[in-house]
């Protein structure tokens, strides 16, 4: 897994590439919590390049989302599709998270 | 075609150079002083060899089995001088105008008859006969008639030999004119031939000559294959250790043969340049002297016959024996398998010449057996070792499935082998077998060692008379090639016959 962050005008885009599983979820959590502690309260997670997600990955997402909520921030998920979307749907995450078809849409919604 | 033409031209050129003699004439030897660092030719195991090494320590000494080989070498410029016994040297100089003898003798030695140790009665009678021949002047007369400086024909005494009685077997190396050589009727004759007949007549026993390589004579005597050796043999100290000698019947000397000075030979050569170009003329001359004269072609024909008989019989014996060895080798029983393995490795690891001599002088030492038969046995045994392995690889090369299919059809192991494996094996091994056969034919050229007169031996005999190395050798080479080629053709015919598809193509043609 690879994590890239990009600061946009009104939010920070976190792009995850590869797999978000039991091994990589803690890495993701750590990276995002660092962003939050640094004061980033509006996050967009881009799933475009993510091939695989397991319950461990979902849990990581959940943990960071709760942290943000506590600080009054918000998170949106962009480009959730294919097998990753299926896992979202199975676990009911599709309705918990706010989903967008692209990063641009998500940015617009946050504005 | 171009290549063929080129090859023929090349061979002609080489022959031409040889036959007309080597043009690179070096400074001739005129005294023993000149010979100090020269290249000397001697006869293997002769006293001349010892003399050469003692008197010319710095010279390069080359040993030859036969005088004609040494003569061929000096003529082609590979030697500067030959050290040999006077009678032989005399003969050489007579027949080779470009060679001459140095007048002084290098060494004196006694020529005597060799007898197996312990045969004292015969020794005593021989000594008595020699004394008689000496005192009645017979030996002197013989010397006059056989050791001549010109080429006029020999006069030979007509000696009546008894037809009945115990045969006296006399070992000779009949390539040593004028002591012992083969005449136009194929008889062994010469000074020693006559002496042998005289002895036979006086002992009242019929005689039989065994003509073999000089170095094979003493082993033959020791093993009882022959009773005496009369062939101009020197009674050297070395030989006295293994055999007994009679009193000398001839006082011999070691002399040196050298090339005549360049000017003398040039004159001789100029004479011969008359009608025909020198190359063709020398071929014509060689042909006459080597083939026509004294009916020598008969020697060649007889030799050819012997070579073919030995080759064919040895192949048949070797194939049958090889099949047996192969059967044993492929057996799973150690009792059969092991002897076959040992047989194959020993026979393949032994030079066939050694095998031949062993069988002749050791195995059949006390048996009066035809040397041709010995040759057939020796070559047959050797061939068997090779053919056994050829058969084995051939048989093993046939897929196991073929045997299984035959057996499951209801054939027995034997009928499966005969109907299915063997036909496939034959086709498979013929090419290799052919090669082995051809090399057997060529290998038979060593049978001269056990007194068999084959093609090579015939050429040796002719060369010993004519001292023309090249013509007989080339002719024999061509004859060997022809034999091989003919045999090859017949085997190839067999090969075509065994190719199953040939049957069909013939049908298709018809």
């Amino acid at each position, binding site marked *: 897994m690879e994590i890239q962050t990009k600061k946009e005008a009104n939010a920070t885009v976190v792009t995850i590439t590869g797999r978000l*599983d039991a091994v990589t979820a803690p890495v993701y959590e750590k990276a995002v919590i660092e962003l939050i502690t640094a004061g980033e309260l509006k996050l967009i997670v881009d799933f475009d390049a993510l091939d*695989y997600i*397991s319950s*461990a990955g979902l849990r990581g997402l959940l943990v960071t989302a709760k942290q943000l909520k506590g600080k009054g921030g918000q998170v949106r998920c962009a480009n959730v599709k294919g097998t990753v979307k299926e896992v979202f749907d*199975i676990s009911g995450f599709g309705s918990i998270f706010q989903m967008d078809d692209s990063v641009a849409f998500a940015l617009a919604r946050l504005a | 075609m171009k290549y063929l033409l080129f090859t023929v031209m090349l061979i002609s050129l080489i022959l031409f150079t040889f036959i007309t003699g080597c043009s690179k004439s070096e400074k001739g030897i005129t005294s023993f002083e000149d010979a100090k660092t020269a290249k000397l030719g001697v006869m293997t195991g002769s006293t001349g060899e010892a003399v050469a090494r003692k008197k010319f320590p710095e010279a390069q000494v080359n040993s030859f089995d036969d005088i004609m080989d040494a003569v061929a070498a000096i003529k082609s410029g590979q030697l500067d001088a030959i050290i040999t016994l006077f009678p032989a040297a005399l003969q050489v100089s007579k027949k080779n105008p470009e060679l001459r003898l140095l007048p002084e003798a290098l060494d004196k030695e006694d020529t005597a008859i060799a007898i197996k140790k312990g045969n004292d009665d015969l020794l005593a009678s021989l000594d008595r006969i020699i004394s008689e021949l000496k005192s009645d002047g017979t030996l002197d007369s013989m010397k006059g008639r056989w050791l001549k400086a010109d080429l006029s024909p020999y006069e030979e005494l007509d000696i009546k030999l008894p037809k009945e009685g115990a045969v006296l077997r006399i070992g000779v190396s009949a390539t040593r004119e004028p002591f012992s050589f083969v005449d136009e009727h194929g008889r062994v004759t010469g000074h020693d031939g006559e002496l042998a007949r005289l002895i036979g007549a006086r002992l009242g026993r019929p005689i039989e000559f065994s003509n073999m390589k000089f170095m094979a004579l003493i082993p033959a005597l020791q093993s009882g294959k022959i009773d005496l050796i009369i062939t101009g043999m020197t009674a050297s100290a070395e030989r006295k250790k293994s055999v007994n000698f009679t009193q000398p019947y001839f006082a011999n000397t070691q002399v040196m043969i050298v090339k005549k000075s360049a000017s003398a030979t040039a004159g001789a050569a100029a004479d011969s340049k008359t009608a025909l170009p020198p190359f063709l003329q020398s071929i014509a001359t060689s042909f006459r002297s080597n083939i026509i004269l004294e009916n020598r072609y008969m020697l060649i024909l007889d030799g050819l016959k012997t070579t073919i008989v030995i080759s064919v019989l040895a192949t048949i014996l070797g194939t049958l024996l090889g099949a047996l060895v192969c059967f044993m080798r492929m057996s799973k029983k150690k009792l059969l398998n092991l002897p076959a393995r040992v047989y194959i490795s020993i026979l393949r690891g032994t030079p066939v010449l050694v095998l031949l001599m062993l069988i002749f002088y050791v195995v059949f030492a006390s048996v009066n057996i035809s040397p041709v038969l010995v040759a057939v046995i020796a070559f047959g045994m050797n061939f068997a070792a090779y053919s056994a392995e050829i058969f084995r690889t051939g048989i093993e090369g046939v897929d196991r499935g073929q045997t299984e299919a035959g*057996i499951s059809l209801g054939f027995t192991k034997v009928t499966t082998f005969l109907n299915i494996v063997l036909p496939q094996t034959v086709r498979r091994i013929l090419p290799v077998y052919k090669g082995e056969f051809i090399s057997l034919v060529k290998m038979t050229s060593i049978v001269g060692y056990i007194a068999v007169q084959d093609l090579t031996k015939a050429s040796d005999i002719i060369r010993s008379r004519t001292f023309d190395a090249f013509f007989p050798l080339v002719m024999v080479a061509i004859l060997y090639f022809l034999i091989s080629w003919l045999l090859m053709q017949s085997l190839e015919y067999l090969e075509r016959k065994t190719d199953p598809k040939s049957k069909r193509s013939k*049908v298709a043609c018809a």
Partner: protein
Amino acid sequence: MIQVEHLSKKFGDLVVLKDITIEIKTGEVIAIIGPSGTGKSTFLRCLNLLDQPNGGSIAIDGVNILDAKANVPKIRQKMNMVFQSFNLFSHLSVMENLTLGPIKLRGISPKDAELKAMELLKLVGLAEKADNYPDELSGGQKQRVAIARCLAMDPEIILFDEPTSALDPTMVSEVLSVIRRLAKEGMTMAIVTHEMDFARDVANRVLYMDEGLIYEEGTPQQIFETPQKEKTQAFINRVRSFTYQISSPDYDLYAMNAEIENFCEKQILPKKTRHSLLLLVEELLQIYTPGLHGTRLDLAIAYSEKKETLQLTLESSGEAANPLESNFLPDELGLTIIRNLAEDIEFQRVNDKNRLTVLMRKTL
């Protein structure tokens, strides 16, 4: 017709046939199936003594052929064999291949033998190849000639040793159709084959061989539809399996994933199935992970080629407890995913071990 009792055969120390007892009756067509190296061909080769058995007895029409006095070549004439590698006599034409045995072994005149051979060649559809040589024929043609060669001997039974294994797939059917025809005509045959569909329709009786034994036998229906024993089932359903062992919570997930991917690739599973399988395995292991200290977990994945199903079996030591009902789970996330991916989940306590069997849902 053939009565085999307690037949055994070993090659050196390797026991190939342990104890075979079977009776073959006239007119029966017996298919012998089973994994490679379980002695099917050896059994056939022992029947006509191409391989000498080490023990037991073989009686043909009441005559024990292992008796030293038995005329084995004579008996073999009644019991011909068709080989995997055809084994036509390469130095003889097709016609001669067919007439050699009858002429030499049965004393039939060459003319009669050729007439009969021609008839048989027509039967296998190769009359025009009579004058050709084996190396001029295709594999399928060779095998048909080999069958005709057997028939030329008027055998009472034909033994087929994997008759189509060495053939190009395109040539298999021409050979099988000849054998089918023989079966219809009532020829007694024993056929070692890997062609399951063929075995099913041509045989009256099927022997499944494994472990040097006739492991299970029955009608084609019984063996192919309702095999009783585990190994037979695995073979019939063409089950391929993969096993992995985990003995610490710090196992290398990625190394294991790579091996599973490899296994999937061999079975040519679609990408989607692979993804679901990997997810299912990860979720299951996630549940097991907290309890992995000091215990061992054996993971087995079995794929049935025939049913196209994937079955996961997880076996762990320790106290009897269904891991899916344990209290260690932080949330229902993993379990939800597992339930969604699985068609059927079963927990058993077997041999003091907890066994969880999960049948994966077929992905569309």
